[in-house]
């Protein structure tokens, strides 16, 4: 039970990051490897606003999401757009986003230095002891805000014009173009939204993990794993994948072997991919002949 509960907050973070992968992947077909570094950037901006400029938590969260969202748009304009115009193969896009990750990480290193920074939890991290089980306020906050962010995303996709355009593009890019959807704009929206999602994950995770310039690599990879387990491109799948991975890691680390924890996770992942290539939680339509 305790293992399961421990998996929830980290699972929520994975879910948010997984969502940011899925969002970009479905709407623009890009595997964006810089997603983890958007998480890092979000955490640093949140840290700077709350610790240096003494903002309170909520405005810092929102401001950080906006700033990182803008970074997402810049990435889309400067990198994805020319790649698309040249019809570059997908592997080039992956490498370009890797380049973005390297640049972001090292700029962060130059600005904020190599030391880890403390980002105090807005609600404190005293544990709540419920008989055998203990949970911190921050854990509860992470799960709640995580779910809130996911709900807002769902609302955005379902009920706003931009969201609807995104979904149309995700369904069928060519058809969406014919229907008059501006795919450049929808790409920009997708990059902005998923970078902002990443930033929110960064701020949520910062009080638990501290803020370091290389925190993005690990979270990014795990978020990607969660997205794939759930089925890249499926929003409920990504959420389920995030929580699933969080609990799985908690159990594997506690019950089997801590050193091999990630190895177990990945082995399971490869097994999942082998048996069900489109992810655990969605049923993908067969390839059309």
């Amino acid at each position, binding site marked *: 039970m305790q293992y399961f509960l421990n998996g929830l907050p980290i699972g929520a973070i994975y879910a948010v990051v997984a969502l940011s992968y899925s969002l970009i992947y479905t709407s623009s077909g890009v595997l964006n490897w810089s997603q983890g570094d958007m998480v890092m950037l979000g955490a640093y901006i949140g840290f700077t606003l709350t610790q240096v400029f003494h903002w309170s938590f909520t405005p810092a969260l929102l401001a950080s999401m906006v700033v990182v969202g803008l970074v997402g748009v810049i990435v889309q304009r400067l990198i994805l757009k020319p790649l698309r115009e040249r019809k570059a193969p997908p592997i080039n896009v992956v490498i370009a986003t890797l380049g973005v990750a390297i640049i972001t990480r090292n700029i962060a290193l130059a600005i904020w230095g190599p030391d880890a920074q403390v980002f105090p939890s807005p609600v404190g991290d005293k544990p709540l002891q419920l008989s055998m089980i203990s949970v911190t306020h921050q854990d509860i906050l992470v799960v709640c805000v995580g779910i809130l962010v996911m709900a807002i995303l769902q609302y955005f996709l379902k009920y706003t014009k931009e969201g609807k355009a995104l979904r149309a593009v995700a369904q069928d890019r060519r058809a969406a173009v014919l229907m008059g959807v501006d795919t450049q704009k929808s790409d920009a929206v997708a990059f902005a939204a998923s970078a902002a999602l990443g930033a929110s994950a960064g701020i949520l995770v910062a009080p638990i993990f501290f803020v370091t310039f290389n925190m993005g690599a690990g979270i990014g990879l795990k978020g990607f794993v969660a997205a794939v387990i759930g089925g890249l491109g499926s929003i409920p799948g990504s959420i389920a994948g995030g929580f699933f991975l969080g609990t799985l890691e908690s159990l594997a680390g506690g019950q089997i072997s801590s050193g091999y924890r990630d*190895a177990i996770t990945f*082995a399971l992942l490869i097994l999942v991919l082998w048996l069900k290539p489109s992810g655990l939680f969605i049923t993908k339509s067969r390839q059309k002949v």
Partner: protein
Amino acid sequence: MDIYRLAGRKFNIILLAIVLLLPLFISNLYYLHIINLAGIYTLITLGLNLLSGYTGQVSMGQAAYFAIGTYVSALLMIHFQISFWLAVPAAILAAGVFGALIGIPAMKLSGPYLVLATVGFGEITRLVILNWTAVTKGAAGLTAIPLPTFLSIKITSEQDFYYLIIAIVFVGTYIAYRLAHSKIGRTFSAIREDELAAEAMGVPVNMYKIAAFVISAMYAGMAGSLFGVFAGVASPDNFTFDDSVAFLCMSVVGGNRSIAGAIIGTFLLTVLSEALRTFQAYRLVIYGGILIFTVIYMPQGIYGMAPIFNKWIERQPFAKLLFWQKPSRE
């Protein structure tokens, strides 16, 4: 024109002479060290080009086979006093077996799913090496990997290694070239372009995909055994995800649908990451920028620019005599 054919041949001879005499002109052994390192990496990139460029199976876990090659050969040499020349085939074989192993789930996968499976395999391999301390010595790594001997000459200096590595890279390049410019390479390309159509034309796609994984793994395994004796030590830190990514970048930047691209990309990026040391803190930023620039403006890699370059040369009579080569059918 025959004179151009002759010029082409002369060019090859000059190139060969430069390659063989290079250590004489380089008194700074640091440069030779980097060249040797790039030579070892070239083997990995050659395999990766056959796998990713030709067959279209992107691998972000190539460091795993590299690691398997290093550890298998080094452990054989350390514990069983087996000669380098026997340890190498064993390492290649072992890497090949693991190549087939990951090739099996990879048969069904593509795009990000395949990327993730290969990333996962790379991480599993690294974690096993890290945690299986009884055999691999864990994070401390293997030390005192014996030096190879060739006809009772002990290979010790950077120059010795240069000739050893160049000889193996030469054979590796030749094999890769033969594979790429034959029925096999053509079939690989067909699989990359359209698996279903290739299958419908009688190509046993799964077998070829596994073969591509095995070949690329064997190349990385070969590189690994060379790396072990070259570095003298090996630890899990040598075989991280970042290394896999670096190999992939070499392959794409050079041009992953050609054999020459593998060599160009590897040397360029290996030298670049060293040359940028001068820029200290910003060097990785510059490195990232160069990566982005290349993949955007040279989508087929640097070697993909060759036809353009060739056209330019064709218009310069002198340069034409020296460098222009008749385009081959492929």
